[in-house]
């Protein structure tokens, strides 16, 4: 058990940035093809991070480095906990912690765009935090355990009991992956009304750390999507991977279709979706059990 945890966590530590970078590159390629462009090579994110690591790092406030590094470490810790087979609740709490550190990094710079980005990031957290907690609770209702190592040994896939939770989670992934209708705090595209939001005042290796942390985060999120499909049967893993690919493609499609909305719309829509799908699902589960 103990060795298994460490090996899985180490595998995540090494493979997640590779896969995350490739996913990010695929995302950019898909987006380009959807817009009728050729698009960058699939390993473009690695070129970007390599360049950022070789650039000079200008720091506005030295505590910024601590927060950004903390963000990276907490994200990696969260992922290791999840893929090692740890506690689902702890995973989500640690994830909030990493987000808070990122917000603090933006607040510490005192730049108007960074601060605006940080405030919007807090609003975004308010939108998706209920859902992440509900996912943990939903898994507990379905399988009777918070431990990921127990959840993967389920007899039936969780999606059968938790379809509403799945829809809700895919919906908040739009916020989590910083996709277009809800990319209020920062986005991957140019011409943001507030420059780059959260990451405006980060440069050089600090920005590279944020990028790497986002790769880890993407893989973690995709892992949670896969959790809905995984059972004790090894073939279920194939289904989980197919589901991840489909979900990721849908997220890119949504990113390219919708324009950005105001925060109040985001709040209303997200909470409505969470309440209708996840809330109803939870109620039905409650009645049935």
């Amino acid at each position, binding site marked *: 058990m103990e060795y298994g945890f460490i090996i899985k966590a180490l595998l995540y530590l090494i493979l997640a940035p590779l896969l995350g970078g490739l996913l990010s590159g695929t995302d950019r390629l898909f987006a*380009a093809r959807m817009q009728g*462009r050729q698009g960058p090579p699939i390993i*473009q994110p690695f070129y970007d991070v390599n360049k950022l690591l070789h*650039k000079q790092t200008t720091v506005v406030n030295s505590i910024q480095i601590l927060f950004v590094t903390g963000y990276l470490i907490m994200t990696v810790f969260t992922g290791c906990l999840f893929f090692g087979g740890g506690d689902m609740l702890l995973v989500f709490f640690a994830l909030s912690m990493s987000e808070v550190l990122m917000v603090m990094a933006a607040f510490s710079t005192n730049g108007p765009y960074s601060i605006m980005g940080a405030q919007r990031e807090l609003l975004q957290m308010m939108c998706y935090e209920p859902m992440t907690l509900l996912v943990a609770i939903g898994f507990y209702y379905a399988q009777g355990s918070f431990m990921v190592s127990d959840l993967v040994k389920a007899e039936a896939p969780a999606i059968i009991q938790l379809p509403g939770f799945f829809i809700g989670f895919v919906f908040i992934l739009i916020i989590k992956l910083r996709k277009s209708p809800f990319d209020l705090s920062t986005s991957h595209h140019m011409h943001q009304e507030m420059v*780059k939001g959260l990451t405006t005042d*980060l*440069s050089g290796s600090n920005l590279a750390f944020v990028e790497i942390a986002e790769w880890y985060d993407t893989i973690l999120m995709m892992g949670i999507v896969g959790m809905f499909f995984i059972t004790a049967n090894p073939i279920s893993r194939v289904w989980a991977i197919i589901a991840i690919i489909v979900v990721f493609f849908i997220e890119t499609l949504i990113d390219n279709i919708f324009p950005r909305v105001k925060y109040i719309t985001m709040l209303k829509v997200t909470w409505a979706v969470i309440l209708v799908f996840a809330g109803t699902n939870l109620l039905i589960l409650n009645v049935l059990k």
Partner: protein
Amino acid sequence: MNIAKSPWVLHYDGSSCNGCDIEVLATMTPMYDVERFGIINTGNPKHADVLLLTGGINAQTAPVVRQLYNMMPDPKVVVACGICACDGGIFKDCYNILGGADKVVPVDVYVPGCAVRPEALIEGVVKAVGLLEEKRKKLKESLKQGYCSVDYSKMAIHMTADDYDPSNQYDAVLTEEALRQQAEEKIKASAKPAAPAAKPAVNAAAAPKPAAAPAAPVAEKGDNA
């Protein structure tokens, strides 16, 4: 891996007629699609590697261009897009135009044209990107010797139009040689006090006096070390 694989671009319009700006943006469209070279148009000087300047520089935009240049982390390159950014172009003799972009920041690549053709622009950026790798090596060397090739102590100067004085604009962005000299002087100055113990105290006491007494722009210009 080469750092030239992902040049992020910052575009600033210093009094252009918008002709060149439209062409700059045209390079992002599916027709030319510069993103296939990894080029992204960031609106943020702190993320940018290449500064694209369009239009001649006037008294109002000069401090802005200077600030943008100073905010960009090293290594960085500047591309003057269009004939106005190269030397003032058709507006050269206007009372408010100082001239090309090289009046305020050191320009690496001049791309002429009115308006500049997207193909020419792409070639210009590709050439500029070739310089990035060289500059990175220089930066590494200069960092080893204890200085950085951009003088950030000058960042707060010339922020407003009132502070603007064309006669001292260019030397705020110091050249490689000037910085090397400064570094050597600093090293000499720091090496001296080790041998005679009493002398530096006298020097230190004497030094602030001439700096404080005149408080003239001449002294201000000189003591950037």
